[in-house]
């Protein structure tokens, strides 16, 4: 678990960014529009004179929420359902697998898009929608993995000496499946940062002035020619965040 250190640190950093910003990310200052970077505004200001660094930090917090929500929901829901399906077997296994296959009939992003259209786009709603949508593929993956471990000789041996089902689950099964599942979930939650940015970029009637990285890219695209750094910073922040997750949880 040493290698999960970098994403955890990053997540902590993102949440810390939500607690304090040098400026109010929504404070408009028309006298300081498109200000060049200086000590007061380390990354300069945007077309309304809002401090870019503060907006980036606030956006990081919102992205952090999505990543965490997807990670937690996907891991608990997907791992639980997939493992249950493999262990229970019979009609319950069939039911869970069929339900999971239903989930992948509609792409994750479209599920989240629908949820955002219905309930409005917020880090929370997007996190829940993306997390729920991640359960389907993850359950299928966990099921496959658990099945593979279940037919190993050591499981049969444990069964033969009569270990209880709890011991079987926590001593023999999960230690073998959980690391792989964690890798998969880590990768997925990194990708969810991109999905959330896409949702914010697409907009869907959400307030584009909210400091989401994707929303900032949409809002600032008109200033691509006058002030390209406005685009560069959110894109860089997003790319770096996802890169850390992908590198750590490379499949």
């Amino acid at each position: 678990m040493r290698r999960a250190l970098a994403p955890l640190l990053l997540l902590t950093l993102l949440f810390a960014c939500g607690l304090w910003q040098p400026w109010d990310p929504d404070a408009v200052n028309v006298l300081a529009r498109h200000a060049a970077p200086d000590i007061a505004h380390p990354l300069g200001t945007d077309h309304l004179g809002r401090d870019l660094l503060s907006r980036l930090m606030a956006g990081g917090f919102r992205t952090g929420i999505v990543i965490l929500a997807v990670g937690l929901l996907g891991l608990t829901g997907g791992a639980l359902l997939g493992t249950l399906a493999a262990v229970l077997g019979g009609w319950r296994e069939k039911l869970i697998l069929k339900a999971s296959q239903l989930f992948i009939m509609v792409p994750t992003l479209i599920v989240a898009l629908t949820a955002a259209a219905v309930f409005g786009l917020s880090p929370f709603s997007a996190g829940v929608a993306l997390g729920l949508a991640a359960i389907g593929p993850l359950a299928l993956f966990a099921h496959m993995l658990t099945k593979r471990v279940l037919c190993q000789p050591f499981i049969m041996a444990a069964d033969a000496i009569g270990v209880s089902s709890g011991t079987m689950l926590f001593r023999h099964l999960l230690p073998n499946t959980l690391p792989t599942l964690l890798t998969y979930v880590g990768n997925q939650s990194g990708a969810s940062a991109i999905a959330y940015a896409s949702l914010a970029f697409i907009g869907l009637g959400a307030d584009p002035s909210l400091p989401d990285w994707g929303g900032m890219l949409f809002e600032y695209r008109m200033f691509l020619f006058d002030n390209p750094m406005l685009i560069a910073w959110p894109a860089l922040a997003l790319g770096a965040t996802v890169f850390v997750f992908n590198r750590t949880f490379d499949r």
Partner: protein
Amino acid sequence: MVKRLGGWGLQTAAGLLAVSFVAFAIIALMPADPVAIAIRNWNLPATDETVAALRHGWGLDRPLPVRYVQWLSGFVQGDWGRSFRTGEPVRLEFMKRLPLSLFLGLSSLCLAIALALPLGFAAALKPGGIADRFSRLLSVFTQSTPAFATGLVLIWVLGAQLRWIRPFSNDGASLTLAVMLVALHSTAVLSRIYRQGLAAAMGQPWFITARAKGFSERRALWRHAHPSAFYAVLAAIHSEAGWVIGSAAAMEILFGLPGISQFLVQSISARDQMVLQAYVIVVALWMAIVGLVARLLSLRLEPRLS
């Protein structure tokens, strides 16, 4: 084989039915009231009669299961309901925009396959060579940057610095750029899968036999390893189809292309339930059809499956 396909078709139809019902139920739960929004937009008098008439006209006064059954029977017959925003039949609005979105999705997918095969092949031929390193770099890059951010950078380079294209204009250059950007991610993913498949086949005894018979590495790879590796690519196409449709949505917004996703964004501020519903079904149908084509191709490739 017909029996297998029939079973698969039945399963898909049942899945589509379930997806459509779940989508219908969730969309009906929408907290904002489309009637209130329509009254505001059209400057109608907000009397009880108007509200009742609108609700009745849109069928919102009937219970959910009844509405679903009515919608479903209409949908199958080609009546996808009327848009709450424009009053036009939703199917006509979709048919106007679908060709563009379909073109975007299909050509990106085809381009990705066409690029991924040579790239993956070259990478497998020489592990650690230029092609191998390039495809790995591409996959790291495309996985950590969304297509629309890359698109913004490209617009800046091509539009602002080199002045080759007119930025944010809905023309051929934008469409080409959009197709390439969407294809880039799938190219990276599929080329890695293809390379992995080829590499796995190279360790098999039958591959060594082919080499021993005097086939060159390249020829043996193409004749003997390619089918099994391509099979893995086909299996991955389903998830890539989902990715393509999502990135295509962002591309339509970025380049201002009048496709179905742009239409959805315009409709959502009016809480246009019928449009949202049709959108989900169209996407689910797209996934099902791509899945079917991939399945047919893999059946051809691997007759033992049928």
